[in-house]
């Protein structure tokens, strides 16, 4: 084979690669759009009035996840199934965001941490690499860390809305999460950087709890919903 023939063949491979990436990018864009819609919807819970209809918002968000599932299903078809990590970078970010959104919905519904299997099910993908398009563990953990920041914010806003018990529950939850993350030996990568931010979320929530405690507001917390600032 002559040198130029070899390069023609290689160029063909590279072009095919680029075409795949182009296709993936298109689907990822639609996914990002859906993720933004869900986020906008869920941001409503931070508003004073939003606390009452959390279940309704969650239900709506769940409907949107149906769209996510079809979009992810079409993403799967865009590349060979055994080359997930070759194109991983393209959907990594949006997948982390979707994990966060799913985790947020689940937290709002049940106040527990969503498991990796459950997220995968909500997104209509696999939790296990062997079974196809899956959720990478680092992406899952990244999404969970985003949830922590969001909950720190929710703690603040729920106090403003007069709900004094929620911050206490969030505090317990975040503390448990923090202990969980402490178990992990993270490398000096992006996940580690995200994890380093967790302590600020913990601190923020502790401050909120502190403010409530010294004023004795946590005592009336159990019946305290509805009080206005």
């Amino acid at each position, binding site marked *: 084979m002559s040198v130029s023939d070899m390069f023609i063949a290689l160029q063909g491979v590279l072009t095919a690669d680029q075409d795949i990436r182009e296709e993936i990018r298109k689907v990822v864009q639609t996914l990002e759009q859906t993720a933004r819609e869900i986020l906008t919807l869920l941001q409503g819970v931070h508003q004073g009035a939003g606390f009452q209809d959390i279940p309704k918002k969650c239900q709506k968000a769940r409907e949107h996840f149906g769209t996510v599932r079809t979009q992810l299903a079409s993403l799967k078809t865009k590349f060979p199934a055994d080359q997930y990590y*070759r194109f991983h970078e393209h959907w990594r970010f949006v997948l982390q965001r979707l994990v966060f959104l799913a985790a947020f919905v689940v937290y709002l519904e049940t106040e527990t941490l969503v498991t990796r299997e459950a997220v995968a099910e909500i997104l209509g993908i696999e939790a296990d690499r062997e079974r196809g398009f899956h959720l990478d563990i680092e992406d899952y953990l990244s999404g969970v860390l985003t949830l922590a920041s969001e909950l720190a914010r929710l703690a603040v806003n729920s106090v403003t809305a007069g709900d004094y018990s929620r911050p206490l529950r969030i505090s317990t939850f975040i503390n448990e999460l923090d202990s969980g993350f402490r178990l992990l030996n993270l490398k000096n990568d992006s996940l580690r950087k995200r994890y380093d931010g967790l302590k600020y979320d913990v601190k923020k929530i502790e401050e909120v709890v502190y403010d409530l405690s010294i004023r004795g507001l946590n005592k009336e917390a159990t019946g305290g919903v509805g009080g206005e600032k």
Partner: protein
Amino acid sequence: MSSKEGSGGFRKRKHDNFPHGQRREEKENVNPSSALMMSFKSFQLELDTRHDKYERLVKLSRDITIESKRTIFLLHRFTSAPNGEEILNESEAKLDAVRRKIKQVAQELMGEDMYQFHRAISPGLQEYVEAVSFQYFIKTRSLVSVEEINKQLIFTVEDREEITNTTSSSQDKQTNTWSLKVTPVDYLLGVADLTGELMRLCISSVGNGDIDTPFELSQFLRQIYDGFTFIGNTGPYEVSKKLYTLKQSLAKVENACYTLKVRGSEIPKHMLADVFSTKTELIDQEEGLS
């Protein structure tokens, strides 16, 4: 740290039983066997396994790089040494050693998505491509294809004895071949590095009074350069970056050929070596600077 009083107010428990310091005390309500903690324990295991594998691959990749570099240096001696055949044999042995390392990589990647760990092994593979293609060029004066390289990277169970005592205690019994594929991009980057070696080969062969090799090399390099310009920026960023170095190497070889042609007519052959040995120094200095 500032939250001691804060939590003290709302969780009235004795701190004395927990001598682990303040942060731990706050977590006293965290049940170590809760579902969340259990799942994080499994994450710990999963992440550690992954990181360990990655580190092992990085190390192998480094070994591959070092051995490949040594092979290249060895092959550079080919032009000056009279015992060419011997050096080729020696280089073959060295490359075999490199391939055994690559086999270990292939075994590590068994059942994994190769691209997940691609960044760990890519530098080693590029260096290997460079060494193999350099040897191939010296032998056949042509460019080795990516298919041919990959053909050599299919390992069967035969030479298993040699490595069983090192890493492969965990190999699957039902599979008896391992293979690793050099990606087109790694191949391209390796070939781009090859041109640098060829440039050096060209200059030193002139130094040894070999007048034909430079012309052959310049033609060969031009073909590769044409190939790379054909690819242009379809490839990833690294490929286009190498294009610049490639151009410089080509220019040096072309200039050498030019000088050879012009001066060759007036300087006797035995003195040409002197003219070029000063030239080589100049180029080496430039190399050192860049």
